[in-house]
């Protein structure tokens, strides 16, 4: 069975992609067929993923590759391949499982949309591309799927294409991530140049194996940083994070998919996949490239958490929380906690999908309203959504013991604490934990507690097709902890390729108390600050946020996303647009002006020669006979056998003809 699944790994991305093509060929009315095809494709992917997962359990550090020649150019072969190892297998299961929940949820959520069929085609394509990405055993193949993931997100963010804001958001996402991708592309070229192969694992000669790494030497730092540019774009790291909150313009299931299972996970996954490039030549696991990763991650995590506090759009808060959590994962990877970072990515996949789908359920119930200040009191009207959402919120905040997010977050903090270079990231991450608990508490108070307000008066619970995925994801968010706890750190050991040991005593660690205190502080602070916000009556829907009341300037700064968009608009975008205008102007006036100037000079010259000709000929008729002999002498001189002379004569003749033409024409 082992070899069977390895040779058929390609089916995992291929089947959802094929489903996508099949759905695209359906007519707009065949809604049921579309949904069924998409779900079947995804179920197949999930089943195959589980089959692929099984052999990786049998031995520690399981790794199997399936390489093949894509094409030969000249006499060189370009090889691609698929790889199955714990990292890929764990990602596969998470992506296909979360994806499946989102697919089912979408059947209910998108029921009224006129482009229902197209939506499922895009979803399947998105899922297929992401599954291919995690299976790639070649940086080139990874890049190919990486771009396809980008395309799918472009199509889905701009799905409601008749909305200008959706189209703008899609364009922004495409271009911003492509900026990072260009760095990735360059890094890939550099790696290809140095190591001569883009295969990760190839029986000892892959670029991530010792022989391949040995060829890199000092360039590894630059290659790693260039590749990291791509990860920054996809995973929404500062300064390329600006597209991610705008991606909320897509339908909510898309946001769930982008923020949980696909797209943003790709960047973190990429860094984990090519980790040997980052850690090459490090002392105590510290290299300059990893240091950059840490600081980018810290900046992103804190900045996004701060911005999230001042947002009013339910999805935007979650979007910034994703940015913040991704920063946390990057920090974890940077300080050497690769397994911890990936664990958090997996756990985050479940609870973030849960939160987004929950917010979708809320929006669905509130007739499309996004503003949390207009909601309220939904805990009674939408009990299932409330309970599942609360689970997601506590998992995200990191409430200890019962929720998956807490264990993985503690793992990351533990890794960060021991980073040799500086302790600052550790303390900043602790602050991040408080902020996360604070903004999630604020959100849940506004949405679910207090009295009903404008948008939530007539709210109703969502249909079962939407609540079932919520329940499934909530169960995952809780029970995923089983493999995460320090008592039995199975996933950690699995990802690191070690055997896991069971030891209840390890359950109680100092980090648990640190975490308990910080999360408690965040939630307590939130309840204290927003206690009145939830209680306000419905006449005052657009009330002033308590924080805005206390610190209007700071709040405005945060609510406007630190004016980073405006800053980019004034600098980068203005500059590029000016460059475009300048290029156009240069073409129209400078280069073309040169050409026309040249033409004008030619015309003047032609007129001169003509007048000389006229006079010369008219005046010269009489002298022609006398001149013949002299001309003969001249001609014999001209037959000098010197090529230069011939050429010069030819050139003059040609030029004269040409100028004559220009003058006549």
């Amino acid at each position, binding site marked *: 069975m082992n070899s069977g699944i390895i040779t058929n790994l390609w089916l995992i991305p291929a089947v959802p992609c094929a489903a996508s093509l099949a759905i695209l060929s359906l007519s707009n009315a065949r809604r049921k067929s579309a949904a069924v095809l998409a779900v079947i494709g995804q179920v197949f992917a999930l089943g195959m993923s589980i089959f692929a997962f099984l052999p990786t359990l049998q031995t520690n550090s399981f790794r199997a590759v399936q390489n093949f020649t894509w*094409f*030969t*150019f*000249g*006499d*060189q072969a370009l090889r691609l391949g698929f790889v199955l190892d714990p990292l890929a297998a764990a990602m596969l299961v998470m992506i296909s499982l979360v994806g499946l929940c989102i697919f089912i949820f979408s059947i209910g959520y998108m029921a009224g949309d006129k482009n229902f069929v197209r939506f499922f085609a895009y979803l399947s394509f998105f899922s297929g591309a992401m599954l291919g990405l995690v299976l790639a055993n070649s940086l*080139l193949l990874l*890049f*190919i799927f990486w*771009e*396809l993931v980008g*395309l799918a997100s472009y199509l889905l963010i*701009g799905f409601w*294409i*008749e*909305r*200008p804001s*959706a*189209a*703008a958001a*899609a*364009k922004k996402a*495409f*271009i911003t991530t*492509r*900026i990072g991708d*260009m760095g990735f*592309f*360059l890094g890939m*070229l*550099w790696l*290809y*140049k140095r190591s*001569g192969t883009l295969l990760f694992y190839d029986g000892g000669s892959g670029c991530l194996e010792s022989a391949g790494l040995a060829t890199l030497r000092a360039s590894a730092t630059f290659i790693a940083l260039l590749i990291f540019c791509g990860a920054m774009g996809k995973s929404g790291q500062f300064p390329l994070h600006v597209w991610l909150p705008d991606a909320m313009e897509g339908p909510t299931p898309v946001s769930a998919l982008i923020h949980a299972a696909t797209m943003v996970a790709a960047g973190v996954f990429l860094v984990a996949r090519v980790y040997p490039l980052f850690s090459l030549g490090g002392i105590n696991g510290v290299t300059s490239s990893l240091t950059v990763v840490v600081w980018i991650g810290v900046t992103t995590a804190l900045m996004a958490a701060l911005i999230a506090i001042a947002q009013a759009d339910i999805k935007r808060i979650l979007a910034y929380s994703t940015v913040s959590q991704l920063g946390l994962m990057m920090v974890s990877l940077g300080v050497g906690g690769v397994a911890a970072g990936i664990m958090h990515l997996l756990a985050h996949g479940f609870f973030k999908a849960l939160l987004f789908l929950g917010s979708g359920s809320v929006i669905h119930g509130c007739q499309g309203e996004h503003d949390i200040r207009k909601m309220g009191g939904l805990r009674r009207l939408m009990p299932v959504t409330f309970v599942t959402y609360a689970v997601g919120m506590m998992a995200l905040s990191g409430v200890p013991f019962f929720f998956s997010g807490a264990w993985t977050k503690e793992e990351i903090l533990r890794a960060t604490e021991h980073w040799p270079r500086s302790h600052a990231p550790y303390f900043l991450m602790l602050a991040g934990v408080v902020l996360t608990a604070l903004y999630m508490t604020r959100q849940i108070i506004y949405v679910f507690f207090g009295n009903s307000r404008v948008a939530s008066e007539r709210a109703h619970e969502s249909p079962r097709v939407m609540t079932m995925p919520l329940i499934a994801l909530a169960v995952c968010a809780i029970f995923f902890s089983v493999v995460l706890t320090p008592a039995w750190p199975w996933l950690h050991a699995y990802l690191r390729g070690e055997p896991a040991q069971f030891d209840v005593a390890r359950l109680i660690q100092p980090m648990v108390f640190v975490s308990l205190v910080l999360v408690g502080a965040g939630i307590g602070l939130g309840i204290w600050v927003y206690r009145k916000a939830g209680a306000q009556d419905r006449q005052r829907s657009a009330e002033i946020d308590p924080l805005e009341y206390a610190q209007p300037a700071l709040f405005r700064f945060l609510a406007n996303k630190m004016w980073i968009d405006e800053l980019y608009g004034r600098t980068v975008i203005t500059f*590029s*647009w000016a*460059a*475009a*205008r*300048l*290029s*156009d102007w*240069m*073409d129209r006036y400078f*280069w*073309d002006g*040169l*050409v026309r100037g040249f*033409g004008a000079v030619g015309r003047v010259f032609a007129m001169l020669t003509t007048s000389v000709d006229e006079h010369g000929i008219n005046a010269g008729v009489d002298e022609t006979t006398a001149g013949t002999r002299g001309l003969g002498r001249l001609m014999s001189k001209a037959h000098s056998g010197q*090529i*230069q002379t*011939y*050429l010069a004569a*030819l*050139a003059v003749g*040609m*030029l004269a003809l*040409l100028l004559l033409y*220009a003058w006549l*024409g």
Partner: protein
Amino acid sequence: MVGLITAIIFIPLLGALAVWIWPQKNARPLALICNVISAACALALWRNFDATASGLQFVERHDWIPAIGAEYLVGVDGLSLLLVLLTSLIVPFAFLAQPMPRGSYATVLVMQSALYGTFTAQNFILWFLFYEMSLIPAFLLIKIWGGENRDRAATKFFLYTFLGSVAMLLSFLGIYLARGTFDFATLAGLGKNGLLTGNLAWLAFAGVFVGLAVKVPLFPFHTWLPDAYQAAPTGVSMVLTGLLSKMGVYGFVRLLLPLFPNQIRVVGPWLLVLAVCSIVFAPLAAWAQRDLKRMVAYLSINHLGYCMLGLFALAASPVVAAGVDAHAALSGVFMQIFNHGITAATLFYFVGLLEQRRGLRGIDDFGGLMQRTPLLCGWMSAAMFSSLGLPGLNGFIGEFLIFKGSFAVAGPFTAIAIIGLLVTAIVFARAMQALFSGPLAQSCSAFPDLLRTERLVIVPVTLLMFAIGIAPQFMFNIFNTTVVHMARLFA
């Protein structure tokens, strides 16, 4: 199979004659029938082509004017075959784009014949004859059947390309007087040790270079192109961008690089600067265009800039490129030649469709098309994504290989050239936003979606793009041996 190439060259000429004689209404079917025949010959050529043999195949050699070393010498290697196939593809595609007046069918057929000749001739005189023979039909097509500003565009086109041709002819006369041969293979063999000496060599180099650079066109010899493509009718724009520009690139591969290796090595960095300028400034200018046709024209300059980057990086590098890099750069250039041919022609085709429906082709004249014409938008997006180099479509293969090859030998230039990839994406993302998204514009509310006939044209071409993007081996088989052969020649 002797005579196959001659047949391919002369069938369109006969077709032109037939179109001229027969009544007006038969012009298009006749032109298409003639193309079916020549395409069948081209396919026969492909079928009987021995992909493993290096050197010329199907050679036909006859004395022509022995006194000046002119021979009728035609033959194909992988590169020539690729371009013959491309010609057989693009011209019928252009005929299907829009109904044209009878005269223009005949003129395009003459041009097609000249193109076949250019891509197969192996003797300079013959080659130059065909090369010039393509210039005049192009001039007439713009001048007589063009749109707005056609006089200016045609004159500019003619002056530019004619000046370039004169410069090239003079250079070759110089070479002939010194070496006594016009045969490409012989000249290429002599090129290593220098065909000419001293300043004369530089003059000859400059002449050939300018002639070809105008044709490609390479920055800063490109300003005729936006005007010409903009003024030309849709079908003609498709042929101009799909095929005429390839004559320039072909000339670089066949003539300039083998004949003047020493000169190129000296001025190499400057040539690379020009290529990078093409790559970076052209899409920037495209961004600032309002006219869709002009926008696509500028992007053409950018895409041909990638070809130039690959060739110059290979020929100009101070270190001899390793086998893998040389093969990557050359294969990439060849792929790019073909890919740009079909993709750019398809883009012009779509602009033509929009113009037919709307009467205008400014980027702001449309809006919300996705609601009205989803099929048109979908297939047009495929062409745009192909053009911006999305993996899975044809454009990516060529660009990746070019960048791979040139990065290894000319790293900094290649790194700057990456900006071009980014700006191209911006240009297309902006165009898609303006055309497809937002509320449906009033003026577009009666648009028909892709008609059946249009679908029959566009679907096969797009499927070819996907085929090349996903499983490109069948394309590489055409020219792999030629690549190996040329890489050895340039090394």
